[in-house]
């Protein structure tokens, strides 16, 4: 359990231990709401607010956030990251939470379809997008990438999502 300067607790050590959390000032959030004020996704989805994601996190409600829909509504434009007066990065926190959510076995339905498209293309061709005849890696390079994907745990990641590999 870590204490916040404003007296609130954060329950997920895993979030703080992520390499990306090192300099994003997670614990400096003062709930000013500037992130939500400039957020395009908050204007599209009534129930989405980066400020609220941060609030849940600092209140120790990490599991709720990981199980919920909210983290999948962010469009990853990083306006919140640019504008946060405390140097926090809700967009980066959301990426960390997306990864944790999948690691816990939640949210599979949110990404399975995308992983079945882009992830499988990466595995086979070394690219995220492909159209008939478009650029793909030569065989030897594609095998190298496949080996890296396997060794970095990506094969297991896709299998856990229920995505079949060729």
């Amino acid at each position: 359990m870590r204490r916040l300067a404003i007296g609130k607790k954060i329950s997920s050590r895993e979030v703080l231990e992520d390499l990306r959390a090192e300099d994003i000032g997670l614990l400096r959030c003062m709930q000013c709401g500037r992130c939500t004020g400039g957020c395009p996704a908050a204007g599209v989805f009534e129930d989405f607010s980066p400020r609220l994601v941060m609030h849940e996190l600092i209140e120790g409600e990490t599991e709720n956030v990981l199980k919920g829909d909210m983290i999948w509504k962010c469009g990853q434009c990083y306006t919140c990251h640019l504008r946060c007066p405390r140097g926090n990065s809700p967009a980066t926190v959301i990426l960390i939470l997306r990864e944790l959510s999948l690691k816990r076995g939640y949210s599979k339905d949110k990404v399975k379809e995308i992983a079945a498209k882009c992830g499988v293309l990466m595995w086979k061709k070394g690219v995220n997008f492909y159209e008939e005849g478009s650029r793909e890696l030569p065989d030897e390079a594609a095998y190298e990438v496949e080996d890296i994907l396997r060794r970095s745990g990506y094969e297991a990641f896709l299998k856990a999502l229920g995505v079949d590999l060729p």
Partner: protein
Amino acid sequence: MSECHYLFKSCILGAYYPEAERCLRVVFDRLDTQYVDDPAQSSCTGHGYHSGIYPLKTTLEVNRRNFSLARGKGCDDIVTSCVTSYATLKEMKKLLKDPIKIYHGLEVLYEHRNEILRGLKYNLEGIKVVTHHGCHYTKIFYDDVKAGDPERPVLLDEIATSLGGEVLDYSERSLCCGMGFNHLLLDQEYCKKIARRKLESIKKVNPDLILVHCPGCLLTLDRFQGILKQEMGLELQIPVLNYTELIALLFGVASDEIGIKTHHVALEGVIERIKE
């Protein structure tokens, strides 16, 4: 910047606008800028990484290989044609503490903007332009934005002006194009609503073209004009050009070689006016 750039190719351009990517090479050749085009370079995973389908570890390891390939070719910088590659590589470089330098292709051409003027066959006189800088260029590593303020980057504006064009302002200038990563590949509600907000704000100032430097923005601002017309009856028809296509065109490269057939919104009208 180093003598020889490792050219980092984009997945979206490769699949949907291959000529827009080829144009960067054409422009580099005209400017005598040295680069390595390595077929072994893989995707940075960026689009999938921001959609949540790659764990950090996988993105780190895939790009450790890309950095090593660049060094193996004698390059100490990587020049990307995509802004998400730019930001993803910068983030991974930082986390891996790798000394390699990362630039976006627009930054290289911005440095060469005076030489570009010497090679022009046409210019943008009488053409009204709006610009859109990609969020992953301006908003992630905001201290590195080469010209203007991160809230108001002006690389494309300065290039368009130096080419003779008139740059117009619009109210949603700093708004995301609407691409939204996972949203693009799922129900697209975010994409349609944000692209509409952006494009309607652009339509109000009635430009001849939208100038972009990001594959995702090109795809979204170009193709969603068709989707918005079909689903909501919105008449926009604003041509969208990648900076590489525009400069190649002004150098005198033929229209079909800059890939006008890959665009949803017809470019013939504005190209004819540029060539008048």
